[in-house]
């Protein structure tokens, strides 16, 4: 007999619980999942495709890293799948006829959607080419979500006094970006796992446009307070070295280790560059060390041996210097539009168009009407469902009495049902979103 096929996972992280459980299940994780989609498939051009691919790297690991878009795929396809997959965030890249690249950042299922125009962008590969030491090995950096730093998103209160809408816009943007990545807590998150940083800096513009600069860096740590020579002797530093060729220094010809450490011929400890402290990027890190698990016998021995030794506080705090290496991409995003729904619905803000009060009122009225209509349809649908349920119950009880009449009865019911289905086709579509939302809340 043929061997049973073992299913391979198409997306990483399925095994270790990063993927949320089934919708509605209680153990569902609250990890924001995202999809980065380029709309319009290959027509969008290789540059934007690459940009989308780069952005996928940024939002790793809780994303559809190997999503394949087809020409026939519409936004609707992704949104329908988002519910079951637990996707909460959408990043949609598109290109207008004029050649402008747009990035839409939307929340699933309810929205809102922020539409940005990508004023200019630099691909990750261009950044890596420009670097003197381009390093390929950042693989483990993408295994955990990055740290998000937002700078200058909110303007001061006196600025907002004139424009109350601006404040709403700012806070909305900030909260939306904040929810992009899972929450960092000192008790659960491991510090050494944070290896990337995503920076969003709002640029102050005189003309009041909302421009955000996006940068993506890798975080590297370097021990400070040690001279280069001592670092060369440190086994942990040795392990971290990328070039394994330059191993331990050769001290065989020296009389004393001090000759090596204090050798002033090539700098020695007197070199200022070695010991100089960049205080503004220095941090203290608690070094995690493995402690030997002692047996009861050994424990007793230690306790009887010297109490003061056991009581002595262990200081394995290290000073480290933080250095950032840019990974790319860079983007300059200009907020153009905010929509209420997922790429649809009421437009809450538009950079170029400002409506007068009357127009606003009119639009509000229109949306209100739409909402009412929707409500009405929903109500109707609910009634229909209930009616059908009741009817079914009735027929069932009828069939228990005699089977012959039932056949004709059933037929008529079927046609009735079909009609209802036809009627309520679009209603159900609308209802889809609500189901999704319910799931989310659960």
């Amino acid at each position: 007999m043929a061997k049973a096929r073992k299913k391979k996972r198409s997306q990483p992280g399925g095994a270790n619980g990063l993927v949320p459980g089934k919708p509605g299940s209680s153990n569902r994780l609250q990890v924001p999942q995202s999809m980065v989609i380029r709309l319009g498939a290959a027509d969008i051009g290789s540059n934007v495709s690459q940009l989308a691919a780069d952005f996928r790297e940024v939002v790793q690991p809780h994303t559809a890293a190997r999503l394949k878009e087809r020409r026939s795929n519409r936004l609707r396809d992704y949104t329908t799948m988002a519910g079951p997959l637990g996707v909460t965030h959408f990043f949609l890249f598109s290109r207008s006829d004029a050649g402008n690249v747009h990035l839409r950042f939307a929340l699933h299922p309810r929205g809102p959607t922020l539409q940005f125009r990508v004023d200019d962008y630099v691909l990750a590969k261009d950044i890596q080419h420009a670097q003197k030491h381009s390093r390929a090995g950042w693989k483990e950096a993408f295994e955990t979500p990055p740290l998000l730093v937002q700078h200058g998103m909110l303007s001061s209160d006196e600025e907002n006094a004139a424009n109350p809408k601006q404040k709403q816009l700012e806070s909305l943007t900030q909260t939306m970006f904040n929810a992009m990545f899972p929450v960092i807590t000192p008790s659960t998150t491991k510090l050494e796992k944070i290896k990337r940083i995503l920076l969003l800096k709002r640029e102050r513009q005189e003309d009041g446009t909302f421009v955000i600069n996006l940068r993506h860096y890798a975080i590297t740590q370097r021990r400070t307070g040690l001279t280069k020579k001592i670092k060369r002797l440190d086994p942990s530093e040795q392990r971290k070295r990328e070039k394994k060729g330059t191993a331990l220094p050769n001290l065989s010809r020296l009389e004393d280790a001090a000759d090596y450490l204090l050798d002033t011929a090539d700098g020695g400890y007197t070199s200022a560059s070695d010991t100089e402290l960049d205080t503004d990027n220095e941090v203290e890190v608690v070094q995690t060390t493995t402690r030997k698990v002692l047996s009861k016998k050994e424990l007793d021995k230690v306790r009887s041996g010297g109490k003061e030794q056991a009581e002595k506080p262990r200081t394995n705090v290290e000073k480290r210097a933080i250095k950032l290496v840019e990974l790319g991409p860079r983007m300059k995003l200009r907020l153009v539009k905010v929509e209420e729904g997922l790429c649809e619905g009421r437009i809450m803000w538009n950079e170029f168009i400002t409506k007068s009060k009357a127009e606003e009122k009119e639009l509000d009225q229109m949306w209100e009407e739409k909402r009412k209509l929707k409500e009405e349809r929903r109500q109707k649908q609910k009634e229909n469902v209930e009616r059908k349920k009741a009817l079914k119950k009735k027929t069932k009880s009828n069939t228990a009495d005699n089977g012959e009449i039932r056949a004709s009865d059933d037929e008529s019911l079927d046609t009735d049902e079909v009609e209802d289905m036809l009627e309520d086709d679009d209603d159900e579509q609308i209802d889809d979103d609500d189901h999704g939302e319910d799931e989310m809340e659960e």
Partner: protein
Amino acid sequence: MSRITPVSAKKRKLEDAMRGKTTKPRKRTKKQKRYHSSSSEDEQEEDVGFAPVNLGDSDDQAAPVAKPVKEQKLAKNGSSESTSKKSRKTSKKVEQPPESSADEEEVGSDASDQDEENDQAGNNSDMSDDSDAESKSTSRKTTKPKSKRNDPTAFSISISKILSTKVPSKSADPLLAHSRDVAQARAAESSSRLEAKAASKLRAEKIAALQKGRIRDPSGIERGIAGQVAREEKDLRRIAQRGVVQLFNAFRAAHVKAEAARKEERMKGTIGMGERERKAVEMGKGGFLERIAGGRKSTATEG
């Protein structure tokens, strides 16, 4: 340019000329080995004047000019016959063509070419055998055609003939400027060139649209704004770095606080490891939140 020839040479030349051995005047220009126009060797033709031809004329208009040409042809044929009769030795060769050469000009000219060659041959043969009578040679000398090479009228006649030839209108225009094919080809070429130009422009536009917004040199050296870019990038990097440092410090502080809380709980005598841990976490969390929220400018994602 005139060259003074020595007297002896002059004399000899004269004697040669009397014997029918005329030396051709020296030619300074490039020698053209063969020049045969369609016009005959006879003097009769000299009175046919040069009919001016308008180059712009169409073929139809050229028809009246063509008429005298035919007459000339006839006259030429007659003359060639007369010459052939006079020459004894070459008569066989000469007598064959005249009727056939009457209708087509080219053939006729060929025939006349032959005539001339034959004449020359006859001349040579005369020179070789002196036994032939002098009188005959002299009589021939009078009919010997004058060289057309330096004759302007001959040239004018031939060129006028060329220009006035009637060309069947159906055939391709011999004048390239008038040719429809050439005009078409030229138009096609120019249009194709235009098309190519337009296509390349479109392509360039498309490529530009595809590349819109993309910056290829992140350092801004090629754009000439390296300093400005470097300053901006440094700024951004510093902000990011400060954010990271803040986070690390917050972590450290939370850790310390949690540690302290744990110790305190132990001192207080809270029962249960889980309970103690919970308290510690809570303490740490509070501190963490405070620390990160304290950095007003940069807000990191926090718990």
